[in-house]
């Protein structure tokens, strides 16, 4: 059964079309990679799927709800990792997560659990601004899973993660429906069952993992 259904998603930025009539259906528990060159529309598509942006036109249904009208209700169930970690540099890693626990309405104990899951337990009290770029990315991933979302939307989460990116992301993605944008086709092939390729904002086709391997 499809957990996410998009029809004709289109996004204009002034005279430029960033996304043009993209259709998509993702089943519960499925992992889909979104591939494409820079400027292909990956981030625009993911921001719409994460309910961070509204499309100019098109329809989007997530978990049976109209994602353009029920955004706040859906945000309990969606975890989003964007390009920028978006952390508070003066707060420690655990303080960053505890703050978002309050905003998500989950127990603050989840902060330490999430830090341990992404391997940051040992730097929990270090200010986020003093963490390396890779650690900040891990912290952003930990924030995205604080509320145990059913749908994860990950925009190039492998950037600056290091050699164990696939293992970490695989563990985070397990049991969840995932949309993952990446430039790394090998990573997409390893973590996802299906790929969607975008070019100039248009879908140029989807492929299952077997086809990509071929």
């Amino acid at each position, binding site marked *: 059964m499809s957990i996410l259904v998009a029809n004709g998603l289109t996004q204009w930025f002034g005279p430029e079309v960033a996304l043009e009539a993209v259709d998509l259906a993702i089943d519960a528990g499925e992992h889909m990679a979104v591939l494409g060159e820079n400027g292909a529309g990956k981030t625009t598509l993911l921001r719409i799927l994460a309910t*961070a942006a509204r499309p100019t036109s098109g329809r989007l249904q997530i978990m049976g709800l109209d994602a353009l009208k029920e955004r*706040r209700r859906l945000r309990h169930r969606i975890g989003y990792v964007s390009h920028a*970690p*978006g952390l*508070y540099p*003066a707060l420690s890693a655990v303080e960053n997560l505890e703050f978002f626990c309050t905003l998500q*309405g989950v127990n603050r104990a989840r902060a330490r659990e999430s830090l341990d899951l992404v391997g940051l337990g040992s730097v929990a009290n270090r200010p986020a601004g003093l963490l390396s770029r890779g650690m900040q990315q891990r912290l952003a991933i930990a924030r995205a899973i604080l509320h145990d979302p059913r749908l994860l939307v990950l925009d190039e989460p492998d950037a600056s993660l290091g050699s164990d990116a696939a293992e970490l992301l695989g563990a985070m993605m397990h049991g969840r429906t995932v949309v993952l944008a990446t430039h790394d086709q090998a990573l997409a092939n390893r973590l996802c069952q299906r790929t969607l390729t975008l070019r100039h904002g248009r879908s140029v086709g989807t492929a299952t993992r077997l086809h990509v391997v071929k």
Partner: protein
Amino acid sequence: MTNSFAVAFAVARKDLRAEWRTRELVPALAQFVILALVIANFGFQIDSRNAPAIAPGILWLALVFAGLVAFGRAFAAEREQASLEALLMTPASPIAIFAGKALAATLLLVGCEAVLLPALAIFFGTPLSIQVVAAVFVATIGMASLGCLFAAMVARVRARELLLPLLTLPLWIPFIVAGGQAVQVAMGASGSYDQAMALLVDFDILFVVLTSLAARFVLDD
């Protein structure tokens, strides 16, 4: 479900904790208001007769410009850290987030006023009474709600430093008029202090309610 009071309190505490650790805003604002008083002290021929007439004007000028900086930073810092999106991607009520930001900005400006008011008394020899403090504090509440709303509106546009004063200053005029009158009366001028304070409280209620309602549309893009 998220508790709106817990969210507002968490947002305010987060902003105050970040300010306490970085000390970016309050020391700079305190220096600014002291410099403003020094310049005014040299710019005007101040003596014991004209000080009660001039000091309230200087007080509100310094407060208005310090407020513009304080409220502008409330959302500019979120934008610079790219954390505004993460904040708004939570199911927390935009009104609660706005209330938390406004509360923190208000308390930071109150910290600045704690420097400004004694300095005004020292430089101008005006009385530092509870009436003066109350008038400034009550005006700060309404000014903060308006300042934070417009700061949130302009946080994502390019010319925000220019737009924020253009949008905010006209709507701060009622606070400056009523607050100025209250402070003048508290410093010895004739008039009704209670009437000016009642007007300030009315403006507070009006603008706090209006900005809370508008915050939902400003923050929920």
